[in-house]
């Protein structure tokens, strides 16, 4: 048993943990990151699953990494390159396709082919969403005030939110309120008539949730996809050089350069509590670390129910964390390909392979995929979002061959009868059969595949329930209610213990914001 002393200990070397560590180190603190796995990166790691084929195992796009973090931590100096994913291609059930290209006029012409009205509505819709993203941005970079509290800090915070709401135009305020409460299906039905367009757009509203596109509240998630647009740093969709692992590698490198110590293969057993304060952690191997501050970048359930004995928290808080919804709903298929999939709707190699390929022919299609999942089945015809990273970054696969990442929803964590090898095969088969329907050469092009279910995400990345956002983006789990009422400011009922991951405000999908905001709060408390 050895004893180490630091200013701050970060549990978990995912991107939020690393960002949190980097900001604390930047403020002069002595920081250590303890990572359970042999590599850092959490859910954003790149691994060579088959010789020569590199995969971003879990997450796959970095649309939302906060640009201020890229600037402030000087990530490009540490190797970060975000390459554009220029298009979205949706093959349709009738043999046609719908594409959004990287040029406005080209996209307009393509949409016009399906519906002249939609081509016009699309522009207006995009402008509204950008305006809404601008409206929401100040809220996202705010520590949510607790409306029930009477503390000066919370009252000032509330005042700020109130002033801010009053500064919005009536139109924007209403649009925002509707956006937060609507279903993505209803929102899109108001604007568009083309099924494939609505299907593809609605898909971004369900990612990471266990809801169908017809459930209210899903429209808000759509908005997250416009956040990148207003920052001007890059387009909404990007793919990091060397995959998402490239992002975390650059953050880790930046953190190290700031003096952060990163220890891998160091699973934390428990947070040490003394006199009602978190004072350190004990590893599973018995090593102990002492620090003024302990930060968890794990999900709320692990953070509060596993690392700390419940007796240190009020009963109500424990109940609230138990009730926190973390149902994993998505899986992945990582595939090594001998050749590119050839889509019958648009044959040959083309620009479509450099962008996202979405199996989302209609809202009903996705809703039916959800119907399977809510009763514990893997969607027979799932929503699939494919990208072929080797088309963007040639280092990802041997020359002439490709890696393909298929994000699949819905893949329930609680599959009926539990996850077995047969179930996994069945899941893979559903995905392959679905893609094959649109690209007949797909099946024979497969030379290797890795199947990842929510249970695998839980096992490998350590996220409870395998929910990619550490907790579903539901209305009652957002803003001042995330992860629990009164505890949305990254602090916890245990003094000295903080939460700095997607399970805190503003939630997953806004990459790195929780890590940074938490660091700012920790530094405020520093005495």
């Amino acid at each position, binding site marked *: 048993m050895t004893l180490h002393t630091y200013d701050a200990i970060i549990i978990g070397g995912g991107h939020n943990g690393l960002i949190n560590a980097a900001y604390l180190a930047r403020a002069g603190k002595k920081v250590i990151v303890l990572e359970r796995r042999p590599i850092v990166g959490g859910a954003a790691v790149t691994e060579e699953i088959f010789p020569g084929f590199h995969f971003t195992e879990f997450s796959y796009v970095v649309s939302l990494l906060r640009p201020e973090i890229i600037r402030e931590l000087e990530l490009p100096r540490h190797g970060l390159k975000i390459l554009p994913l220029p298009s979205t291609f949706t093959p349709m059930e009738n043999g046609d396709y719908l594409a959004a290209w990287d040029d406005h*006029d080209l996209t307009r*012409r393509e949409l016009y082919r399906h519906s002249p009205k939609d081509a*016009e509505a699309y522009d*207006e819709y995009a*402008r509204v969403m950008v305006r809404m993203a601008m409206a929401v941005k100040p809220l996202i970079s705010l520590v949510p005030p607790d409306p029930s509290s009477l503390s000066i800090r919370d009252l000032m915070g509330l005042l700020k939110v109130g002033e801010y709401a009053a500064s919005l*135009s009536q139109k924007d305020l209403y649009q925002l309120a509707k956006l937060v409460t609507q279903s993505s299906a209803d929102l899109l039905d108001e604007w568009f008539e083309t099924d494939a367009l609505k299907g593809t757009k609605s898909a971004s509203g369900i990612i990471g949730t266990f809801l169908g596109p017809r459930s209210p509240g899903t429209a808000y998630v759509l908005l997250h996809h416009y956040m990148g647009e207003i920052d001007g740093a890059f387009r909404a969709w990007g793919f990091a050089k060397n995959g998402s692992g490239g992002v975390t590698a650059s953050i880790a490198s930046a953190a190290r350069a700031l003096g952060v110590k990163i220890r891998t293969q160091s699973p934390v057993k428990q947070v040490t509590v003394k006199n009602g304060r978190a004072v350190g952690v004990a590893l599973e191997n018995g090593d102990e670390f002492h620090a003024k501050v302990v930060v968890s970048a794990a999900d709320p359930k692990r953070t509060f129910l596993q690392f700390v004995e419940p007796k240190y928290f009020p009963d109500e808080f424990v109940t609230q964390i138990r009730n926190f919804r973390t149902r994993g709903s998505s899986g992945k298929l990582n595939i090594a390909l001998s050749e590119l999939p050839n889509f019958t709707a648009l044959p040959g190699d083309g620009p479509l392979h450099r962008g996202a390929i979405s199996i989302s022919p209609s809202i009903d299609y996705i809703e039916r995929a959800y119907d399977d999942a809510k009763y514990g089945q893997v969607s027979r015809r799932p929503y699939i979002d494919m990208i072929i990273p080797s088309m963007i970054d040639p280092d990802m696969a041997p020359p002439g061959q490709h890696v393909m990442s298929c994000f699949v929803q819905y893949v329930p964590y609680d599959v009926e009868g539990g996850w077995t090898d047969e179930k996994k095969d069945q899941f893979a088969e559903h995905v392959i059969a679905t893609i094959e329907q649109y690209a007949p050469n797909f099946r024979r092009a497969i030379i290797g595949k890795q199947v990842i279910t929510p249970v695998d995400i839980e096992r490998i990345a350590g996220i409870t329930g395998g929910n990619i956002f550490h907790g579903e983006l539901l209305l009652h789990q957002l803003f001042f209610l995330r992860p629990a009422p009164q505890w949305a400011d990254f602090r916890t009922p245990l003094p000295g213990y903080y939460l700095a991951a997607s399970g805190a405000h503003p939630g997953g999908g806004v990459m790195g914001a929780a890590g940074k905001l938490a660091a700012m709060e920790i530094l405020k408390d520093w005495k």
Partner: protein
Amino acid sequence: MLRTTPFHERTSTLCLAQNWRRWAGCIVAGSYDLTLDREYWAIRNAAALIDVSPLMKYIITGRDAARLLNRITTRNIDKLAVGQVYYTGWCDEDGKMLDDGTVSRLDETTYRLTSADPSLRWLSMNAVSLEVDITEVTHSVAALSLQGPRSRVVLNGCCESPVDGLKYFRLMKNSIYGIPVTISRTGYTGDLGYEIWMDAGSALTVWDALMDAGHDHGIAPTGILPMDIARVEAGLFMIEVDYTAATHAIIEAQKSSPFELGLDWTVNLDKPGYFVGRRALEREAREGPAWKMVGLEVDWNPMERLFRQVGLPPQLPAAPLRASQPVFSGGVQVGYASTSAWSPVLKKFIALAHIQRPYYELGTDLRLEVTVEHHRQHTAAKVVKTPFYEPEWKKK
């Protein structure tokens, strides 16, 4: 692939400059020559043939066609006679400009609307519960603009019936080499000119006929950049350059009302029935606009002096400048020029500028920012009447 126009087969072989510009998702020739001079002077002195096919075009027909256009535009469409054309702007509910274009009454219940932006959605949104059919004909109808003092002669040389009797902002049915066309006496140059509307399939025949008929009258295929000079001289503004469509504006300050754009004469507040933006426009008519778009004429000698001080002759832009240039009064910014241009015919530097009340009154002395050898300077300019240039034959 971007779209090409029905004249592409001809224009692409003529376009020496390979100076292609985007216009509403199409590519069209910016200029055919490497310089703009010859094409500009064709507009002002002979006949210029301009491909304007990318204009958005809609056929609106049915019992409520006039009601729809009355509801959308600010003009009283009930007064538009068959064979007449109105220029008009249209607004959102806050009385802010969405677009501008022309309405032509083709027969008792059929109208053609042209616009810069796609408008099908807006038309449909306004047509709820109206008995009206809206058909977009942007791609099926080709359009040529024949502009210049010789344009009438050229048309008479190839049209079945002479166009002599066709008055300003009127249209007629005609035929060119057996191809049925509609000819309107309209344009975007402030000169004598016509626009010829035809089925896209017959576009090349009409082009060839006009080129033949114009051969002895100095006809020149002309790009949209020389036309841009002419339209500034004519005091005509351009969407997304001189004003921002309310739907495209991100903030309120970017929007303009028709009064601000000097379109008072197109706003008919007394027409019957609801029309979009009436309440806001009534308010503005009472209170007067806070801004106005006006013509600015730069006082030449002081500007020349500014250049001479650094040892240069005046540097003049070959094509209109679309960069915003601040306008001052007594050292305080009171507006900005959205387009400025050297007028080859007037030998003057002119600008379309947005000026705050009360500085927009005719004759007000203002100062325009100009960049002289990388340094920003102010030079004297005066609010003048537009059009800057109006030949006597324009409306005759």
